[in-house]
């Protein structure tokens, strides 16, 4: 068996957290919250390790003989500058937050702009990639629900028939989304059970 100790710990912790969530036994609840607290700490440390690893990878890229990546230098300068400023001023400092957000927000806003163009381009190319009715239904429904959500037709709300029709149309995406989410919830349940049954062991390296 692969990684028997890790598997036993994962199964035991999973079952205790599951029981603590559903059964009103104070001891179980206490152990559950303690295990979740530990998980939060482990996740925080994992984040720290992953950041150190990312820095190491960029240093390697920069010092590589072949395919030297000079963008890594920008990443490293930005990282060490932010780290030093955060350590000197503390992350809650107003000046520190202002500097970080003044850089991060415009960069992310410009990426949002690129994203909007990319999505439009992908939607146009959808007709080339997929044949049949689905792209047409996708495009028509996107346009119809964009118009409905814009509030452009709210003036027609006084006509009872139009109002009923619009509320029926507005229910369609809600029903569709609920259907998809139900499927995802069932998939999540069986995936969780596979971890509890040790069929999936992503920690067994």
């Amino acid at each position, binding site marked *: 068996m*692969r990684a028997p100790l890790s598997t036993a710990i994962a199964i035991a912790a999973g079952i205790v957290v599951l*029981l603590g969530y*559903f*059964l*009103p036994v104070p001891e179980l609840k206490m152990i559950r919250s303690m295990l*979740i607290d530990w*998980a*939060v700490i*482990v*996740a925080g440390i*994992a*984040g*720290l*390790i*992953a*950041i150190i*690893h*990312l820095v*190491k*990878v960029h240093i*390697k890229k920069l010092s590589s003989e072949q*395919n030297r*990546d000079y*963008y890594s230098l920008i990443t490293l300068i930005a990282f060490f500058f932010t780290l030093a400023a955060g350590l000197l001023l503390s992350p809650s400092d107003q000046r520190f937050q202002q500097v970080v957000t003044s850089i*991060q927000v415009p*960069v*992310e806003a410009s*990426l949002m702009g*690129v*994203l909007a163009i*990319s*999505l439009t*381009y*992908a*939607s146009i*190319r*959808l007709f080339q990639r997929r044949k049949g009715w689905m792209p047409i239904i996708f495009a028509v429904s996107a346009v119809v629900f964009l118009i409905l959500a814009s509030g452009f037709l709210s003036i027609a709300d006084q006509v009872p028939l139009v109002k009923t029709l619009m509320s029926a149309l507005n229910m369609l995406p809600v029903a569709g989304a609920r*259907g*998809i*989410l*139900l*499927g*995802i919830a*069932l*998939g*999540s*349940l*069986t*995936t*969780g*059970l*596979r971890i509890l*049954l040790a*069929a*999936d*062991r*992503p*920690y*067994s*390296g």
Partner: protein
Amino acid sequence: MMYGILALIIIFACAGLIVMFGLIPGLRNTTYLRSIPAFERLRRALGESVEKGTRLHVSLGKSSLIQSTNTSALVGLTALEHVSLYSGTSDRPPIVSSGDGGLALLSQDAQRAAYRISDALESYNPDRAMMTGPTPFSYIAGALPLTDIENISAHILLGNFGPEVVLLTESGEMLSAYTFAGSDSLPAQAALYASAQEPLLGEELYAVPAYLECGRLHIASLMVQDILRWTVIVTLAAGAVLKLAGIL
């Protein structure tokens, strides 16, 4: 209290059913599964990558392990181990990106497990799996250069993404790479439907390990998922009929 016990009964009954179905002889045979063309093409893309000596890129999303959305990433990790087993010992093994520290460590572990099973642990390199950024945009922005530099022929995106994943699929598209993508997030699914070559919708994401022939319990869990789906459908329909009849 009663609802809690009922929920536990359902959960343990499902676990029992998965184990029971897993004992069916010959369940590993994929004839139990309906044909989904996306999975056929994924298998072909895996084979082509090994033959042509190109690289695969697996991206696991940005969900933290302590969030409820992490099950999609767990599916991605199982798929990653299988993909690494399949192509890990090739000249150009897969690279992995993620947007969370815990996921990055688990992806290194999944790759390491694949190398250990293949008896090639000395070839394992942890630098092939990394967190490319801790925020949604920095994660995608960090993963974008990989598509350029690493001669990638296929992107396998399985996890929790936002609509910004389009930047990654479009980048792959520009370099004529194959994109196979599934997410538990509704905005990402809509964006991937328009941009990915093979998008997975709804619960299809959770079928990935079964279709990659990871093990009999994966196919068994898919059968249980089908039973649960029909139970929910029948319950909803019965509830609607009873409501219409004025009984509920």
